């Protein structure tokens, strides 16, 4: 049964997702659009195609996607055991553990970046793609831990216990039962990690030392340049993947989230 709030929420979600696309789209496909004109006057796709076809743009898009993908993957790998412990086991000091995992979320990124910069320079990781990926883990891991711990808090180990006594090996239990049960949670956590890494600017700048060029860096320098059309074109390129990823995840969760949650 659909209710009014559900419709309102759905409407809002698509609105929020579509708005930046529309705004940047209008800018990207126009030559002149200034206040107070309601819509742009001249329409053209030329500048958009020129910017997207640019080799630097393509390379930075690939770099951004690669960094975000690797960061999400590593985040999930690190967060999984931590979140399982936090969510399932009731030990004293859980609260402190929470605070510690939260610290990187709230400690100034500037301080984190500076500290990592010093460390990575000594380790020879500064300026490398891998160094940038590692630095992105600082903000992404807390999110993934937080999301997965929430999933594990509602998780019941007895599903695993059942599978185990019925004859499944530990490996089989992990892949056939555990992973399968928390898949929706993994999708959400991975989504967050991807989005956070995707929009990271400061850490990429500080750790990448100009060697690793991602879309946000390109966009930022375009903003400094001041050409609204190329800003908008890059912004559109920048906003499109997150929108697609969010929409796909929302679709997945609507289909598969419920069947699992019913059991809890």
């Amino acid at each position, binding site marked *: 049964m659909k209710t009014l709030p559900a419709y309102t929420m759905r409407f809002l979600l698509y609105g929020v997702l579509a708005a930046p696309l529309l705004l940047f789209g209008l800018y990207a496909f126009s030559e002149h659009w200034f206040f107070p004109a309601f819509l742009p006057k001249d329409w053209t796709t030329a500048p958009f195609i020129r910017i997207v076809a640019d080799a630097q743009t393509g390379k930075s898009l690939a770099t951004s996607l690669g960094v975000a993908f690797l960061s999400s993957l590593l985040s999930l790998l690190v967060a999984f055991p931590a979140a399982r412990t936090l969510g399932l086991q009731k030990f004293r000091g859980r609260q402190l553990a929470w605070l510690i995992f939260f610290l990187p979320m709230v400690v100034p990124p500037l301080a984190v970046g500076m500290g990592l910069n010093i460390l990575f320079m000594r380790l020879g990781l500064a300026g490398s793609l891998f160094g940038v990926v590692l630095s992105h883990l600082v903000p992404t891991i807390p999110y993934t831990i937080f999301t997965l711990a929430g999933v594990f808090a509602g998780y*019941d180990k007895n*599903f695993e216990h*059942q599978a185990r*006594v*019925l004859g*499944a090996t530990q490996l089989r239990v992990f892949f056939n039962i555990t992973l399968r049960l928390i898949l929706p949670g993994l999708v959400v956590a991975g989504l967050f990690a991807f989005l956070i890494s995707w929009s990271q600017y400061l850490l990429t700048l500080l750790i990448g030392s100009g060697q690793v060029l991602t879309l946000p860096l390109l966009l930022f320098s375009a903003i400094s340049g001041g050409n609204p059309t190329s800003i908008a074109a890059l912004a559109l390129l920048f906003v499109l993947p997150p929108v697609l990823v969010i929409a796909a995840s929302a679709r997945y969760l609507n289909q598969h989230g419920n069947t699992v949650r019913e059991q809890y």
Partner: protein
Amino acid sequence: MAHIDLISLTKTYPGRIRPVLDGFSLNIASGELVALLGPSGSGKSTLLKLITGIERPDTGDIHFDGKSVLPVAPNKRGAVLMFQKAYLFPFLSVAENIGFGLKVQGESPKTIQKEVARLLDIIGLPGVEKRKPSQLSGGEQQRIALARALIVQPHLLLLDEPLNSLDPAVRMNLQETIRRIQRELKITTILVTHDLSEAMAMADRMALLINGQVAAVDQPMRLFQQPPNEAAARFVGITTFLKGSLAHGTLRTDYGNLMVNTNGHMANSALFAIRPEHIQVQQHPGQNAIPGKVVGCMYRGEHIEYQIAASGLAIRARVPMPAAMVPHGENVFVVFPQEYLFAINEQSVRHSSTT
């Protein structure tokens, strides 16, 4: 399918002082259903985890058919579980759930399909193979969970309060179904429950678990009628204990002299007990009757429950209907018929296993 020996099992969880299990011993014959009763926190669930191998005992041993299973991994022990919740895998169909145990053992799809159909017949739910667990009622889910456990032909079936969340009617029905299947397939079974009525109805023997030890173990009827010690007596609903000195078949108490059956030699100081439904309440004095005052009188449907204060003794008597309600404060006589008074130990027995 196998006889099980639980030998002096001890388990203390890290960071806790009192052991959950403290020298727990119990032997279960092949095909027997033993009900394990105990207050919450008495270590019932821990015991099941030790048996399945999810946790290890600190000391003690577990034998299946005379061989220790401590070195055996949980998936090789053949001790399966059924919980209060069905824990059906929500992403699998009913058939896939039931067949899970055979699939992980590498059985062929054809064998699995045949076995699933056979077990659905046994549990009385043929034809639901393709449904999802969420489409079944609570009672049906528990039946499927039972089928999933039985398909692997386990040595031992562990039932951890399997019917607690069901309605009374469904519950009684499943009690009978489980008992029937267990008897037909001759599966050695441990039933953990805190429902005395359920334990008595289903079990060949009942074991009472108190403070991590077996406080009493016996056939349901004998444990209910003549529990061996005070802890066991309280657990089966006995609240009236008469203490005194014994001489020539007479128990001299502070409330008066009572004639008792001594059944052989007895210590000088003795403790006798009586079930509440065996106590009689009457207006006039008589043999084995002591005076008291009614302080509570509650209608309970099939019987009336009196609370009677008799010189410091708080007596709870259950008089079957039809009977008259007696007003508060009324003076009455409480009769303890000689044939229903029985002697018990004041201390619960350590390691009261039966071999």
